[in-house]
């Protein structure tokens, strides 16, 4: 049992205990029914009671069945309440934590895997909470409940049950450990095999271009066949564990049957008691076997928990704790000797200092890996510098409430994300209370109105992953419209033209130029034709500013900037 997952049940403890309690109630009804059944048979067989005098016993048996069904139903409902509450809570908390970690953290992770963990992984916890956890307690309480009833009826059966029951969990632990190891290996091999197949499929075009695609049929057949042989070898051993469990449980029933049968011969036990014990014996072992069958949910749940808690245990950037409001009219943003390293061996910024005056338009250029994106992440407060300080006038940026600071910024990224909503809704993100007219104005300023109004549903066209597929340039202009609408004093541009072709680039640059008017602009750029007009250009290499100045003076310096410029043309 995973301790942290167990702790998750605190938000629905009542539902959890209700689930377990109802399962015990099921066991009680089950015994009532078994008792009635054995009485009917006993009376009809040995006492020759006529059928019409057995009505009460039939009624009691039906009462047992009905109660058992009802309690089982309620138990399932309670278990679902438990599982759904915890799943929702886990998703909510993990996503909140991811938002606190910010996009800079996600860059180093596989975003697809995080989505899978949150969507499908958490779903796997469903059976963990709904079935596995209650099964653990049911395996303790139901046999306990039955054995208490058996004790006054028949001492020998009580002893047989008492002695065999612990053997089952014991075997389960002993064999289960080995089997669990084998199962994990098997699972790893299975996903490896699946991954290989996906790999081949995704690279199919490349394989065809290289004329190697037909050849893969043999490889797939061979690998899958190898897998089958290896796996069957493992399973032959792994299934032995369930064989042992099965044997133990059924043989125990057989032992009880034979043991009471022999004593019946010599009148050592009454027939109705004997029959009751026979009916109840399989039910006694059932919860233990169920637990064995749920073992898989347990290991799977633990694996998901590991991935989930690994995310939740990531410390968020410390800088998000500020509470001060952002000053309305700041004069300058000072970046002072800032250092940042993703890992100690991989420093990204090694002492960067620069000052951005309000109204100034600056550009940060340099080859990829030079630290441009890290610097912008610090300004957006997606990351926190490890030494040095960023100040807004005299206030440390980290002292300002993070939300208030971000309200001051309109950000246009390299690959803007469009949400599964209409184009209008996507633009409106910039200012939720904007009127339709304001949205159209923003779109016009971003040079997006023309193409939007040509779409069949205009501004109501759904976009994003499940909507209309927009070109890179179109998506970028919608993002710029969003930025226009936000009307923030500081604009941060994170290589917004990096993925565009020349024609779209020209349109986007035009829109950005309009957006920049009268605002402070920090522009991260890879392509150099976007930065010529900047008041100040900083060239970043290996985490340091190596050249700075406006375009003319940098060309005149004839250094790295000038070289890059020549190569680009």
């Amino acid at each position: 049992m995973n301790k942290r997952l167990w702790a998750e049940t605190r938000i629905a403890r009542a539902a959890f205990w209700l689930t377990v309690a109802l399962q015990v109630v099921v066991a009680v009804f089950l015994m009532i029914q078994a008792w009635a059944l054995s009485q009917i048979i006993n009376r009809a067989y040995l006492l020759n009671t006529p059928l019409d005098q057995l009505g009460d016993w039939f009624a009691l048996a039906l009462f047992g069945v009905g109660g058992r069904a009802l309690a089982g139903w309620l138990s399932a409902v309670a278990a679902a309440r438990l599982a759904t509450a915890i799943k929702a809570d886990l998703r909510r908390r993990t996503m909140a934590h991811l938002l606190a970690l910010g996009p800079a953290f996600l860059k180093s992770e596989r975003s697809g895997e995080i989505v899978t963990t949150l969507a499908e992984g958490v779903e796997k916890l469903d059976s963990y909470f709904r079935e596995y956890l209650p099964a653990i307690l049911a395996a303790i309480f139901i046999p306990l409940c039955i054995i208490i009833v058996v004790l006054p009826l028949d001492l020998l059966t009580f002893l047989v049950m008492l002695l065999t029951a612990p053997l089952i969990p014991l075997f389960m632990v002993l064999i289960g450990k080995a089997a669990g190891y084998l199962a994990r290996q098997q699972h790893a091999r299975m996903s490896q095999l699946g991954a290989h197949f996906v790999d081949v499929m995704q690279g199919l075009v490349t394989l065809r271009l290289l004329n190697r695609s037909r050849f893969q049929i043999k490889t797939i057949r061979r690998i899958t066949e190898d897998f089958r042989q290896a796996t069957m070898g493992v399973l032959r051993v792994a299934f032995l564990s369930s064989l042992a469990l099965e044997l133990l449980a059924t043989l125990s029933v057989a032992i009880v049957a034979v043991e009471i049968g022999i004593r019946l011969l010599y009148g050592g036990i009454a027939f109705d008691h004997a029959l009751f014990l026979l009916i109840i014996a399989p039910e006694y072992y059932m919860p233990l076997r169920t637990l064995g069958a749920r073992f898989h949910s347990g290991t799977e749940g633990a694996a998901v928990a590991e991935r989930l808690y690994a995310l939740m245990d990531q410390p968020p950037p410390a800088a998000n704790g500020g509470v001060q409001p952002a000053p309305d009219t700041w004069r300058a943003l000072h970046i002072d000797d800032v250092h940042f390293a993703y890992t100690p061996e991989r420093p990204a910024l090694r002492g960067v200092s620069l000052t951005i005056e309000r109204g100034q338009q600056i550009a940060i250029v340099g080859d990829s890996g030079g630290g441009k994106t890290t610097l912008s992440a610090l300004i957006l407060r997606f990351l926190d510098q490890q030494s040095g300080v960023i100040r807004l006038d005299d206030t440390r940026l980290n002292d300002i409430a993070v939300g208030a600071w971000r309200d001051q910024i309109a950000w246009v990224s390299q690959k803007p994300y469009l949400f599964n909503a209409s184009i209008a809704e996507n633009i409106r993100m910039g200012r939720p209370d904007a009127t339709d007219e304001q949205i159209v104005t923003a779109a016009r300023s971003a040079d997006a109105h023309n193409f939007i109004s040509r779409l069949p549903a205009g501004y109501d066209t759904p976009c994003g992953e499940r909507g209309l597929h927009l070109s890179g340039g179109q998506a970028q202009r919608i993002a710029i419209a969003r930025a226009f609408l936000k009307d923030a004093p500081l604009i941060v541009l994170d290589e917004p033209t990096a993925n565009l072709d020349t024609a779209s680039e020209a349109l986007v640059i035009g829109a950005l130029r309009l957006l920049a008017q009268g605002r402070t602009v920090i522009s991260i750029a890879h392509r150099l034709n976007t930065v010529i007009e900047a008041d100040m250009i900083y060239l970043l290499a290996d985490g340091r500013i190596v050249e700075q100045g406006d375009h003319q003076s940098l060309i005149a310096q004839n250094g790295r900037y000038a070289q890059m410029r020549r190569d680009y043309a």
Partner: protein
Amino acid sequence: MLKTFIRTIRLMRPFTRMIVLALLLGALTVGSSVGLMATSAWMLSKAALQPSIADLAVAPVMVRFFGILRGVMRYLERLVSHDVTFRLLAHLRVKFYAALEPLAPARLSRHRTGDLLARVVGDVESLQNIYLRAMAPPLVALLVVIGTTLLIGYFDLVVAMMALAWFIAGMTLLPLIAWYNGKRLGIERTALQAEMNAMMTEGVQGMGEILMYGGGDSGADYRQRLDALLEQTAAHERRIARWDGLNNALDVMMVQGAGLAVLFVALGRLDGILLATVTLATIAAFEAITPLTPAVHALGANLSAAQRLYDVMDTPPAVRDHNRESPEPQDGSLHLRDVVFRYAPDAPPVFDGVTLDIESGARVALLGGSGRGKSTLVNLLARFYEYDAGTVTLCGHDLRDYTQAGARACVAVMEQRTYLFNTSIRGNIRIARPDATDEEIVAAAQAADAHDFIMNLPDGYDTLIGEDGGQLSGGQRQRIALTRALLKRAPILILDEPVAHLDATTGNAILRTVFDQAAGRTVILLAHQHSALFDEMGLTSVAL
């Protein structure tokens, strides 16, 4: 649905004998339980009359025998059915791959993204379970029901009919209710799951926008929407649980009701000694019937997976070979005469009478913005698509005279975004020519300016690069693409936007070495726009 079902059954035909064996073993497993309960009950009833121990005859032995038999049968059944499953998986994969391979990329554009492809692969995996989860349970149930009915019928026909009636009710009524509920609630469930997936994708991929535009306090708007969806999902799941729980309750009533009903009929018809036997045997037999409800769910899911696969497999390929044998390439020339091509019948033509002459050994830069057909040229030469009109002469023969493999042997393409397989760097390069020596691989890598960065990796050429190249940068990826293209022996070398992901300095340096290395081969460079460098390197620029 029925067609899909029959076709899926056909797929399993090569494994008929093993499947029959697994079914028998499965039936014997439950049969042992029936035997255990029946013989135990008979033994107790007999013993209650306190005869001599000899009158119990073999009963105690039979009880122990069934106790052991059950475990052993279950063990064997699991082995055999898993073996069938894995064999089926291999069979399905190969079949599916063979059908899919000719469809890439032309007919897979609907399934373009990796996610969709991964889902198709997942479908193959879920289909392998169709035997285990969906087909076996009803057949096992049938065998057990017949066996148990015969057993009871041996004592009394009316009692047997009563048991059979309950068996049939259990086999039809409960699965039907489950199927109806699954259909009713399943659609909404699928929709909610897709919604959840989309919501999580938005949260992760759109996190920057959520934080910067999402209403100040760390994406309050997004959190609100997430909360609403979580609540909606939880409410729906609770509703499903209520119905599933009801189904289980009905199952309990059906099983125990059957026992009581059989007992009721047997009273007065059967010898008292058999009362417990028939009752407990009936109840035990339901162990084979209860799994039918999950089997119904599994069957529905598996058949949808199968249908999705068949839809892909049945798509006719875009290009078919006209000849069995491919002619030998004569030289490295390429001529297009009035070539017309459109991607779909209703799409505007990408090539509207294109004529192009590239002589053997020429060096040409083909220029054109997006949509001008640069990649289309590669698609046609690689025989991924069929052109509508005009003639293409590749290396001295009509393009259609080649087999698809033959045509591809004439051109080495450096893709804009090549796929990197999850293996070593060496393996990734060697895929271009499996018989290449290590020296040839190194030579090609040096020419593509990839050698230095490869040697800087922890294990050099043996470094495993992870899923789709994992940590390699766009530039490094392109250099591997170039290494592959150089290693593949083909008279024509096509470079698709070779410097798109490289910074200018490196890009230019690479181009220079490539042109030195490709002596004697025809080189066609596809580019967005003209660069002074092209003239410098003596390329003829042609606008497309």
